[in-house]
C-alpha cells in the first residue's frame, strides 16, 4: 500500500468574516497527482497555501507524511523544506542569477557546501532545459523560462511533495506548453503533486484525481475521465461547460 503524503480533515480557513474553506477533506497518496479546479474564489489556492502553511488554518487537521502538523508547536520551516511550492507569479529572486536562485536554499537552509549545491543546481537546470541560462538574471528570461527556474529552485530542496499554484496562469499562451511538459515529466518520475490549474488538458492527461471546488468546499472529485466526461453534480457540469 502506498504511503499517505497529505491528509486534510475538516480544514477551515476564514479571512475576517469571509469563510474561504469550509470543512475540506483531502487525501493525497505517494506519487499521486491531484489537480484542483474551480472558479476563482472557490478556495483552491487557499487550500494549497494552507498545506504549505503560508496561510494558517483556523480549524481542522493537516497531516503531512503521517505527522499531524500544529503550526503553534511544529517547526514550519522544516515542514516547508519537504513541501515545495511553485507560484503563479514565479517569485524568482531578481537580485540573484538563475543559478544563485536555485542554490540559495540548499546553501543557506540546508548548509550544503558550495560545490555540491552548484553541481546539483546545474543538474536541475539541465533537467528543466535551462543549462544555458545559469548566469543570467531572471529579468532576462521569458515567463515560461522563469517558471521552469522556479520549479528547479523548489526541487533543489528535494521536497517530497510539490504544490503548484496556477503555475501557467501568468504566461502567454505559447509558453504554457513548456511548463506543463516539465510538470508532466516530474509527475512521471513519481513526484507527489497538488496542482491548482485551469489547464484541463493537463488535468485529463496527468491527474490521478481531479477535485472540483466550489464555495470553499470540495464539490465533486474523481478520476479525470469520470469528472470530465460524466460529472454528477450540476455545478460541476456548469463549470466545465463554462471553461471548455
Amino acid at each position, binding site marked *: 500500500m502506498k504511503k499517505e503524503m497529505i491528509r486534510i480533515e475538516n480544514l477551515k480557513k476564514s479571512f475576517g468574516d469571509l469563510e474561504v474553506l469550509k470543512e475540506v477533506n483531502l487525501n493525497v497518496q505517494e506519487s499521486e497527482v491531484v489537480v484542483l479546479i474551480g472558479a476563482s474564489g472557490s478556495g483552491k489556492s487557499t487550500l494549497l497555501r494552507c498545506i*504549505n502553511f*503560508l496561510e494558517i488554518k483556523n480549524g481542522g487537521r493537516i497531516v503531512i507524511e503521517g505527522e499531524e502538523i500544529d503550526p503553534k508547536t511544529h517547526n514550519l*520551516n*522544516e515542514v*516547508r*523544506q519537504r*513541501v*515545495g*511550492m511553485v*507560484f503563479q*507569479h514565479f*517569485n*524568482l*529572486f*531578481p*537580485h540573484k*542569477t538563475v543559478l544563485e536562485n536555485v542554490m*540559495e*536554499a540548499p546553501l*543557506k*537552509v*540546508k548548509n550544503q557546501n558550495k560545490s555540491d549545491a552548484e553541481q546539483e543546481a546545474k543538474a536541475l537546470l539541465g533537467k528543466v532545459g535551462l543549462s544555458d541560462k545559469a548566469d543570467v*538574471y531572471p*529579468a532576462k528570461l521569458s515567463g515560461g523560462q522563469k517558471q521552469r527556474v*522556479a520549479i528547479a*529552485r*523548489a526541487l533543489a*530542496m528535494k521536497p517530497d511533495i510539490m504544490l503548484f499554484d496556477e503555475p501557467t496562469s501568468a504566461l502567454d499562451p505559447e509558453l504554457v506548453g513548456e511548463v506543463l511538459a516539465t510538470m508532466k515529466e516530474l509527475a512521471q518520475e513519481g513526484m507527489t503533486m497538488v496542482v491548482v490549474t485551469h489547464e484541463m488538458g493537463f488535468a485529463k492527461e496527468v491527474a490521478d484525481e481531479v477535485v472540483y471546488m466550489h464555495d470553499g468546499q470540495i464539490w465533486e472529485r474523481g478520476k479525470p475521465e469520470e469528472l470530465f466526461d460524466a460529472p454528477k453534480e450540476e455545478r460541476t457540469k456548469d463549470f466545465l461547460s463554462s471553461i471548455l
Partner: protein
Amino acid sequence: MFDLAHILDVLVESYPLFMKGLWVTLQLTFVSVLIGTVIGLIFALFKISGIKVLNWIANIYIALIRGTPLIVQIFIFYFGLAELGISAFWSAAFGLAMHNGAYIAEIFRGSIQSVDKGQMEAGRSLGMTYGLAMRRIILPQAFKRALPPLGNQFIIGLKDSSLASFIALNELFSIATTQGSRTFDEMTYLIIVGLYYLILVLLFTLLVNLLEKKLSAGE
C-alpha cells in the same frame, strides 16, 4: 562687496584651517550616518515586525525626533552625555545619528514594504526562517530601492552636521564663523564655506549615482 580676487586670496590662505574643519565634518558625517543607518534599519524592522511593543517603540522614537528641532536634540545630547564624560564630537555624532536614524527608518520601512510580498513567501516556502529570508531576499532588494532617498538623507546629514558648531566642535562651519568674526570679513568666509559644502555634496551625489548604477547591473 563681492570681490572675487579677494575671495580667492582668502580661500588659498585659509585652506589649511578649512582642511582641519573639513576632516572633522567628514568624520562626524561618516560616523553619524553610519550609526544612523543601523538605527534606521533596526527601527524599520521594528515597524514592520507586526509586534505591537516594537511598533510602539519605533513610533514614539520617530515622533520625538521628527517633532523637535535638531538643534535641541544636539544640545540635549551634548549636556546629557557631557556628564558621562563623553566628548563634544561623540555627543554630536550620537545626536546626529539618532536624528538621521528616524528619517532613515522611514526610508527603509517604505522600501522594505515595496518589495513584492511574493518574495518573502518564496523564501519561506523554501524553508527559510523569517530572519534569513529578510536578510538574504528582502533587504538586498529594499536597500537598492532605498538608495536614492538614502543618498538624499546623507546629504541632509552632511549639511546638518554644521549645527555641531553650536557645541564648540571645530568643524567646517565653525571655522568660517570664528575666522569671519576674527577678521570682520564674515561674508567672504561664508561664501568659502558654502563652496566647501557644495563640492562635498556634488562629490557625494556622484558617488551615490555610481553605486546605484553598479547595484542595478544585470537587472
